[in-house]
């Protein structure tokens, strides 16, 4: 225990910290400039000087570690004089252009100068002149205003790990610059903006468009892009979002954001938003009214359910919609339409994996705190690049690496290039063998655990196989796993999208089990977890309760006042097949774009065009909506309230920030329809729905918005017991794989885009404007490709033309293309095989030919 006295106040510290931190803890303010809570102390500005008894000169409080018995004074005439002097020094080369500077009003230098009354009046020499740079699309750089505190660089290097900027030069001529001195060409997290105390780096999204004191309101809410669920503040003026910023200490992200979260908000104000319902007349979608459109939908669905039975109707839910939306949606499908055919695109990744793991290892196995990553000794990363899919989660991996953790990467993961300790890149067709061998090696050392009979049994089966260990890095990877006292496994969804995906998942489950590891599933969309919790999977009711267990059925039937449909529901790919062979007549799509977001999208389109009736509820006229008979305009992020459950299983509140006319909340549209169809739903606000969920779902038992708003509700918050593993998981089966192509096509998950929302965000489009074919160095060398070459690449189902970008972090013969841009995504040329166990599409064997144009 350390006791120190600051300004006559005795303070007891429970852990070592600097005098500055101790003061902060005691509520005593010491001025700082180079210090920032997120960053390590630097000690450059010297504003934080204090007097310490029995120490000769003034001390820097930010770097001085509090020692027992220290007596500190934070204000005195001498100290004030020094601070005034330092501030005067800072102003001598400062342009003093506050009236023009966007930072004015939230500038730390301005505030300090106001407090200590410094001026630069005695400085008669020339100031350093550096013209403002607008060579970057997103950032303006004004190095005259820079106080060289290096906060931005420390943020970029020590926290973000992008290391895209540096202090260039020495002494008074030091200025922050990106490598090329022009475009930042970085991860565009904008976290440097957060820490710059002055107006030296500014966002060009809102240049000169408002003053910090001119915002009408600031609303604390959650990001709409991915499953990390970062907290952020939306600043609003004139009913439109002017800026998105993080808040120190808040949420999972604690003051950090990624490019999508910070700069991707513009889609919500896009001109292309749907404002009125549309109805197809003579093959054309034309504007309609709510009453007409809802009438058509209600009549048509009623008719089909009567004539053909409920099981000819299918519903696709959305991982971009809230828990409330999804809950109401599945209830509607089951109770009003009479079908269990309800699934989502998440089945092609997260939902499939989540179900498999929970079946094997019990409910909740995939929900772990992001923060836990930082405390790992070894982190195994496979199936995707966490730093792209879930950027802020990726930061914790980088942090762990900096703190000395082993980062074992299987496959490609560009964002960990400078952080990995070892990388194993199995051939496309050998992934399962290599991973199984790794599992086998671990299980040999660890012995039988004997807690999960199915896993133990399968491990014994595996033991008979000949291991494949002659891959570079294998031994090192094995060693890192075996020697680790605290392991995390971070799995991306590429691993699910394999013809033998279940075998890969089994190895992950086995490693999780044997190493007692924390398992993290990368989660591209914001509510993939909540979607499952809400019951938007055919086989499970809300709270992950299997629908075929009669106790659960009975309970929900009582709560919901009716009978649940008998038939087993279909998964999404089965629904598409159903549409193709006309067993599915009608489909209701809420906030999803299956005609674009499912592999082999052209054939999905063909299948959908065979439907009798297609309803799409969305905020944009998507590829799927264009095919619909009725399109219903919904409300989006910041326009409505609702809860989202992130990949940790943390339930968070998204708030309404702006008014939008034209659309309606997803749940409200559904409820109105349901009422029209004779199944009563009486919700007047989202909280009503949450009250119901809190009653029926064991995972969300007794939760209220008040509690959720605290931000620390991870289910099962009120201690409801979780479901154990399922004992009859289908066993593993061999999959014939005969691949011998030169190159394989894979899906790029770009940092700057997500689904199809981001293509309507101007800023993100500026950063990454068109899809590029990403090829590794060896691939490029093999066919003589250069950065910027135009190529044509062809698979068995189509051809796409694109520019080439060489990416040395791709270590094998995969080439990557994204599925985010309007011009046609990679899914349009990818065929798949279904994995029988997970029902997810396997797309790894997509052979591709590349021709230089």
């Amino acid at each position: 225990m350390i006791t120190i006295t600051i300004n006559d106040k005795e303070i007891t510290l429970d852990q070592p910290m600097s005098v500055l931190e101790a003061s902060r803890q005691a509520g005593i303010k010491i001025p700082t400039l180079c210090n920032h809570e997120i960053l390590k102390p630097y000690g450059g500005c010297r504003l934080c000087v204090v007097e310490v008894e029995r120490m000769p000169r003034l001390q820097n409080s930010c770097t001085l570690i509090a020692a027992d018995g220290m007596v500190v004074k934070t204000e005195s005439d001498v100290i004030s004089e020094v601070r005034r002097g330092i501030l005067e020094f800072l102003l001598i080369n400062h342009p003093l252009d506050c009236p023009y500077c966007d930072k004015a009003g939230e500038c730390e230098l301005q505030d300090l100068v106001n407090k200590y009354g410094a001026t630069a009046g005695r400085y008669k020499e020339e100031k350093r002149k550096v013209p403002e740079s607008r060579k970057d699309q997103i950032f303006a750089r004004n190095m005259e205003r820079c106080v060289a505190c290096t906060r931005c660089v420390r943020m970029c290097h020590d926290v973000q790990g992008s290391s895209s900027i540096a202090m260039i030069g020495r002494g008074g001529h030091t200025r922050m610059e990106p490598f090329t001195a022009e475009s930042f060409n970085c991860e565009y997290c904008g976290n440097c903006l957060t820490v710059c105390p002055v107006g030296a780096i500014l966002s060009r999204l809102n240049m000169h468009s408002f003053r910090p004191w001119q915002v009408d309101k600031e609303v604390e809410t959650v990001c709409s892009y991915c499953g990390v669920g970062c907290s952020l503040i939306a600043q609003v003026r004139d009913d439109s979002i002017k800026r998105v910023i993080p808040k120190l200490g808040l949420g999972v992200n604690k003051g950090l954001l990624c490019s999508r979260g910070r700069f991707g908000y513009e889609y919500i104000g896009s001109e292309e938003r749907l404002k009125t319902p549309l109805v197809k007349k003579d093959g054309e979608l034309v504007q309609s009214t709510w009453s007409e459109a809802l009438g058509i939908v209600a009549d048509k669905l009623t008719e089909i359910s009567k004539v053909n039975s409920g099981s000819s109707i299918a519903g696709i839910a959305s991982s971009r919609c809230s828990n409330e939306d999804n809950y109401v949606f599945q209830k509607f499908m089951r109770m009003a339409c009479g079908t269990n055919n309800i699934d989502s695109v998440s089945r092609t990744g997260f939902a499939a994996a989540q179900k498999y793991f929970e079946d094997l290892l019990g409910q909740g196995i995939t929900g772990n705190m992001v923060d836990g990553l930082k405390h790992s000794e070894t982190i195994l990363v496979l199936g995707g690049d966490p730093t792209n899919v879930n950027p802020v989660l990726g930061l914790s991996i980088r942090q762990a690496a900096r703190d000395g953790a082993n980062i074992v990467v299987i496959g490609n993961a560009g964002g960990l290039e400078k952080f990995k300790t070892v990388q194993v890149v199995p051939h496309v067709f050998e992934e399962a063998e290599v991973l199984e061998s790794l599992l086998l090696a671990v299980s040999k050392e660890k012995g039988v655990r004997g807690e999960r009979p199915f896993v133990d049994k399968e491990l014994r089966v595996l033991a008979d196989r000949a291991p494949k260990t002659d891959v570079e890095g294998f031994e090192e990877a094995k060693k890192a796993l075996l020697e680790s006292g605290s392991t995390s496994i971070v799995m991306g969804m590429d691993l699910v999208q394999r013809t033998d995906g279940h075998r890969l998942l089994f190895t992950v489950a086995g490693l999780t089990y044997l190493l007692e590891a924390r398992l993290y599933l990368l989660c591209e969309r914001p509510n993939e977890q909540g979607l499952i919790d809400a019951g938007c999977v055919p086989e499970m009711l809300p709270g992950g309760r299997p629908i075929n267990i009669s106790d659960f059925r009975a309970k929900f039937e009582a709560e919901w006042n009716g009978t649940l449909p008998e038939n087993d529901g279909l998964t999404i790919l089965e629904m598409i097949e159903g549409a193709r062979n006309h067993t599915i007549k009608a489909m209701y799509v809420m906030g999803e774009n299956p005609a674009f977001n499912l592999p082999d999208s052209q054939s999905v389109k063909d299948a959908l065009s065979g439907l009798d009736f297609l309803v799409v509820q969305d905020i944009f006229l998507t590829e799927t909506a264009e095919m619909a008979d009725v399109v219903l305009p919904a409300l989006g992020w910041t326009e409505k309230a609702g809860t989202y459950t992130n990949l940790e299983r943390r339930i968070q509140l998204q708030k309404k920030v702006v008014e939008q006319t034209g659309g309606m909340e997803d749940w409200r549209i559904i409820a109105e329809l349901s009422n029209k169809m004779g199944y009563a739903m009486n919700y007047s606000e989202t909280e009503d729905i949450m009250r119901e969920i809190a009653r029926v779902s064991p995972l969300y038992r007794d939760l209220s918005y008040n509690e959720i708003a605290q931000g620390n509700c991870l289910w099962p918050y009120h201690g409801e017991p979780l479901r154990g593993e399922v004992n009859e998981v289908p066993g593993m089966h061999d999959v014939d794989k005969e691949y011998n192509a030169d190159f394989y096509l894979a899906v790029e998950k770009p940092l700057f885009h997500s689904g199809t929302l981001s293509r309507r965000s101007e800023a993100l489009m500026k950063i990454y404007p068109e899809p590029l074919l990403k090829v590794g160095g060896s691939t490029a060398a093999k066919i003589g490709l250069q950065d910027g070459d135009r190529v044509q690449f062809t698979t068995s189902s189509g051809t796409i033309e694109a520019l080439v970008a060489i990416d040395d972090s791709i270590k094998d013969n995969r080439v990557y293309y994204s599925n985010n841009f309007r011009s046609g995504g990679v899914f349009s040329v990818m065929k798949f095989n279904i994995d029988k166990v997970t029902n997810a599409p396997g797309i790894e064997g997509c052979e591709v030919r590349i021709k230089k144009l």
Partner: protein
Amino acid sequence: MENFLLRNIDNPNSADIGEYEKSGGYKNLTRALGMEAAEVLEEVKASGLRGRGGAGFPTFMKWNFAKADPKFPKYLLCNADEGEPGTFKDRPILEKNPHLLIEGMAISGYVLGAEHGYIYLRGEYPAAKDILEAAIKQAYEKNLLGDNILGKGFNFSLAVHQGAGAYICGEETALIESLEGKKGQPRTKPPFPVNVGVWDMPTIVNNVETLSNLPLIMEIGGEAYSKIGSEECPGPKLFCVSGFVEKPGVYELPMGTNLKDIIYKHCGGIKNGGKLKAVIPGGISTPVFPADGIDCAMDFVAVPKAGSMLGSGAVIVMDESVCMVKVTYRALKFFEHESCGKCVPCREGTDWLRKILERIENGFGREGDIELLLDVVKVMIGRTFCPLGDGAAGVVTAMIKHFRNEFEEHISTRKCKLSEAN
């Protein structure tokens, strides 16, 4: 006193290991390896050796701290950055007597339990790099470096790391940063390098000359060594004298030799019979002595008492033809150029001081400029991250203290008389 540090230096092959061995070289390493490390450390303690890099810190104490730290590996870094203007004392050792340094480092490594050494050599000495590397190679060939040295079970690797033109890299924590591939900007202390140094390991940084004293201590014993020169800081010292003396150069003299004697006895007095005006006793960063202030023993105790510092022992002698305003201006230009930019008082203070001095020197001084200089200095002194900023401020203070009239004259006459005369 017979030369030790500069022994053999006139021999054109002095850098060759054979020549070095001929005059007893590496015997002292053998002697040290025959003793317990703790015994050798006792000799160092008895010798009273103090660091020659500028601060005069007792070497034994520093080593003791490093030895006390349980972490391994430990690193021994030789500070061969020799950047203090006016200093050229390490260069003859590096270029002419590299084996003395190598032997000294091997002995030191043995005492400290450090198995890896690096010589951080300033970029401005390209010739020394080749010479050192050749010498190191010879030493490896004779198993005076490397594994199991002379069969005594002691391993010591040594490599040269070349700086690239940054004065601040002479500061030990900046040197460490630079060796780690970063900008050479000083680190916060504590933790001190002896506990958390290069690659976060216990690290000992010593000057070339300091380490080169080790063979001598082994040769004559700590006790005898402590009898050389001043009582409180014994040993031989290299003084490098430049400017207006008849015989500038590097002199190996007992510590505590009087500055007056250095100038008049050893260096033959003021050049061309000129009149002495001022002496900077320990390199540009040390406060100037006026002509009547040079009756001073040159060691780490007496010089501070007389109002300056021994620094690197770089004596710059100026006669009446030298304009002190110009010297001050040039010195500040240096500090501004070399300020690493980390802390505000130094970065902005040196910039401002230089600008005012430039103006005064060029005849554009204003009334109140002297007060302004002193005000700016006040914000700097005691506030900068490392001694570089303090040094810059101290130079201005001392110059104004002793030569205020020259500053005033520049301002009132709006010109520099001496520059015009030249």
